[in-house]
């Protein structure tokens, strides 16, 4: 196998894993809530994009519409349902699952099992005897940009500091004048918008169907599980590790074994590191500082 091909395969997997997981990870890391309707949020983003593009809107604008639709949906759901369940974590999982069921079947009833698809833009890059989709390279760049953007948002802005204060100690944050309710709503909307972005970005490369959300779930959940409590670092590390594992096994044995390998990685990582990869990083850091 050509090393350049392997690199492209890795970049592609890395982008897919990071983009699948990032919306879920932001909501989980900041609020402790696992959004089991995450796949369906992605599906809504993809539908928003595809329907707009079919209506004649240029693709980049259609993607913005997909993101906005998902963000608005996230806002409404947080205000009406999710906020009642912040102190009941397992119940919030079941509730978001129920939302997912309603969304999948609702879209199926409203729009049928298939809609006209949009084609992958930007053509291909050719090198030697191989060629590769330019759009997929763009996706890897976008994945890195999203991670960088979130890093800046959560560490360098007023909002990020308030949000992190809310996670660390809601009572003190409130006493110091942070509107924690608003922080929770904003975080959920950001997570929803990121899910919508994933749907929008992958809409041209996948078949957009009501059940498409489940094809993101394995990657998203495994990445969050092994990433551990720290959102950005966790998502980046697990995207990297899983990207390598998936690229190797998919390349050697096929897609399904890539999935199995990721599942086994998750089980082994969890068995060995209860705080995931970020826990490991922190342990190492503490040990080095101790010496």
């Amino acid at each position: 196998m050509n090393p350049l091909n392997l690199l492209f395969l890795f970049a592609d997997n890395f982008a897919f894993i990071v983009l699948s997981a990032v919306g879920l990870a932001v909501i989980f890391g900041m609020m402790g809530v696992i959004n089991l309707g995450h796949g369906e949020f992605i599906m809504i983003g993809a539908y928003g994009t595809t329907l707009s593009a079919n209506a004649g809107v240029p693709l980049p604008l259609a993607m913005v519409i997909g993101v906005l639709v998902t963000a608005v949906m996230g806002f409404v759901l947080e205000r009406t349902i999710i906020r009642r369940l912040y102190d009941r974590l397992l119940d919030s999982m079941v509730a978001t699952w129920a939302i997912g069921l309603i969304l999948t079947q609702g879209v199926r009833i409203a729009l049928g099992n298939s809609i006209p698809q949009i084609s992958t833009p930007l053509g291909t890059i050719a090198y030697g005897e191989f060629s590769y989709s330019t759009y997929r390279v763009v996706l890897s760049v976008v994945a890195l940009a999203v991670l960088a953007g979130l890093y800046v948002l959560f560490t360098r802005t007023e909002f990020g500091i308030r949000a992190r204060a809310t996670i660390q100690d809601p009572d003190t944050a409130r006493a110091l004048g942070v509107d924690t309710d608003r922080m929770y709503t904003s975080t959920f909307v950001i997570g929803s918008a990121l899910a919508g972005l994933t749907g929008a970005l992958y809409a041209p490369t996948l078949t957009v169907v009501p059940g498409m959300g489940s094809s993101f779930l394995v990657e998203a959940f495994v990445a969050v599980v092994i990433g551990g409590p720290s959102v950005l670092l966790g998502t980046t590390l697990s995207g990297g590790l899983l990207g390598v594992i998936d690229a190797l096994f998919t390349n050697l044995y096929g897609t399904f074994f890539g999935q199995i390998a990721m599942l086994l990685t998750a089980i082994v990582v969890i068995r060995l590191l209860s705080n995931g990869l970020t826990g490991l990083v922190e342990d190492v850091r503490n040990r080095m500082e101790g010496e």
Partner: protein
Amino acid sequence: MGIGDTFDRLCRPFEGPNTIGNTRRFWIGFVVVVLALLGYPIGFGGYAASSAALYLLYAILGLSLSIIWGYTGILSFGQVVFFGIAGYSFALISMNLSSTLTTMLALPISVAVATIASLVLGYFMFYGEVRDVYVTILTLVVSIVMNTFMAQTAGSEWTVGSVALGGFNGIPAIPSLTFSVGDASVVLDGSSFYWFTLIALLVVYLGLRALVNGRFGYTMVATREDEDRTEMLGYDVRRIKLLVFGLGGALAGFAGVLYATWGNYVSPSVFGITFASIPVVWVAVGGRRSLLGAVVATVVIEWFRQQLSATGSQYAMVIVGAVLLLAILFVPEGVIPRLNVALLNVRDRSETTPDSPDGTPE
């Protein structure tokens, strides 16, 4: 009151603070309902009984989740994994060695396979100190991966013995359960399958009532309420969770074997994401801390889904999702416990003296 006292004494092992229905009135009603259910095939015929048997075997699957989630506090989306594994192993064993004896033996072997699978998964999760939401995610991921795996087994290389796994289409023509002694053999189908399932459900229900109201049940509930405190009191929380998860796997596996022999068919859709969520719906709506609630909700919801899909309506899953959402938001303890409290209140008001402690809800 000789008969009454004997009756009360018979009911006592199944009574306690962890279940609803601890009164003589409840048990009399219970016996009446069981007798009515036993008579159902006689009144409505074998075909109706066979359709109803599906709800009863699903109720066993529902109970398997009720003890894990409702009583021990572990939300698992993976009960269908063990359900499906047992169904597939029953198909592979009984069809590879097609004699009545092996069909009979395939039942316990398949349940054992499902139990071992649940113990292995449970070991990695609970002894790896995996926390609440992570357990839910992992079980869900296992279910999705099993679905992907089974759906891609269409090729001829995926053949176990003489039986092809069949990919997306699954395995057809699985033999019905057969019990044989010497030359005499009984094939369970129609009414006899219904009776077998009903009695199995009855045994499982009463057995679990005795379990949750016994010493082990108390440690289960203690684990649910506060893991650290239970551990401080000297209990091995990991072992409790593993044992309950294994028992849940065994029950789900048993239901899975019944399912495979009920329709003589098993397919990857048993691992599918929709089916994986259905037990959660039954238990959440019926009342996660109530065994009776799980059984009643399973039968009612499945009957309702069947009625709706028979009319060709696509709204079943939307309604099921909405019911689940409303239950979580407004009736978090479940419909059946809520009804029970309402009934007890009505009775307390009609009787001037407050009732004896046997009427206390859980």
